């Protein structure tokens, strides 16, 4: 059982102990100042790379969010078009897919926000560390120029402990950002796979393009029965013409002419998918 001391003091002691251990290793602290400064510069590089990594990850998620949003919008339009054309079955299929895309979107949006906040925190941590490192460099030169080894000791202790604390904090922030980025990479990879599988596709680029083609043929945007009937008649008309080997260049106007003489039972059948 630990004596009640408080989380704050115990955490502080852990940070101090780490700095003291490093200080104890120094013989002439003035010589070690330069070494410490090098370590600080390396950490600065590392935290900047960390910021860049998080930004890359964020941009990838952004791209995926846009793609998914486009899919969702397209599926929504397709559902409306299908309904207008009286094809509730198609509309249902489109909305089901849209719901799947929306789930991914919501999830990804949450992750995006957390990545954004991580990027912001790390950027600020990088700026704070930069300020401290600059201050340390100035202090280091003053100490080296002005004081004897014995005098320097106490002046170094404070600066060293202060910067060591900052470095410990930044080190944890980098670790945390790396973990987040790794998680996001895995997540983004999974969504890429889902997209490649067609599970999140709209009905144009997905395996249902035949249905969309049918929707298009039916002129879904003018979903009026009369027009539908007319189109069914046209489609019925075009089928036998191809069998007869009609000229491919025949214009629509020419095709409409014989529509009135088309056999009655054909239009209904021709309207169904093959």
């Amino acid at each position, binding site marked *: 059982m630990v004596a009640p001391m408080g*989380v704050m003091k115990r955490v502080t002691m852990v*940070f101090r*102990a*780490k700095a003291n251990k490093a200080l104890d290793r120094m013989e002439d602290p003035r010589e070690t100042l330069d070494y410490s400064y090098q370590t600080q510069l390396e950490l600065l590089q590392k935290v900047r790379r960390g910021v860049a990594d998080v930004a890359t990850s964020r941009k990838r998620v952004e791209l995926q969010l846009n793609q998914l949003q486009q899919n969702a919008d397209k599926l929504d339009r397709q559902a409306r078009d299908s309904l207008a054309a009286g094809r509730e079955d198609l509309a249902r299929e489109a909305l089901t897919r849209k719901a799947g895309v929306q789930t991914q979107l919501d999830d990804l949006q949450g992750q995006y926000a957390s990545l954004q906040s991580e990027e912001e*925190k790390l950027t600020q941590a990088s700026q704070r560390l930069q300020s401290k490192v600059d201050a340390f460099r100035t202090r280091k030169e003053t100490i080296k120029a002005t004081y004897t080894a014995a005098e320097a000791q106490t002046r170094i202790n*404070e600066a060293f402990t202060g910067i060591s*604390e900052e470095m410990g*904090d930044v080190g944890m922030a*980098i670790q945390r950002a790396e973990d987040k980025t790794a998680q996001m990479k895995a997540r983004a990879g999974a969504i890429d796979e889902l997209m490649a599988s067609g599970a999140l596709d709209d009905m144009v680029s997905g395996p249902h393009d035949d249905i969309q083609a049918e929707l298009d043929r039916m002129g879904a945007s003018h979903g009026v029965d009369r027009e539908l009937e007319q189109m069914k008649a046209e489609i019925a008309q075009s089928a036998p013409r191809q069998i007869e080997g009609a000229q491919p260049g025949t214009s629509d106007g020419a095709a409409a002419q014989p529509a009135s003489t088309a056999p009655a039972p054909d239009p209904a059948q021709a309207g169904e998918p093959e």
Partner: protein
Amino acid sequence: MIVRILGEGQLELPESAAEELNKLDAALESAVERNDEAAFRPALAELVAKVRQVGSPAEADDLRPSELIIPRQDASMDEVRKLLTDEGLIPG
């Protein structure tokens, strides 16, 4: 006195805030000791909020070490426990 919120940097607080902070901190420590997640979350949030409320950001080039260091607000109980040993610190 200078207080660090991990991940956020240092803040300058009046000495008079110490008593209240200690009280909030005792609740936090007790929650960690009891492994009480339900009490831990609000205790940490309250402590962090108090420091933010009474503190103002310390100068960025101030090299003084903090008198008190508190975990980041979204730290898990496990992460806080690691901070109480040197497990939570990156070696070097």
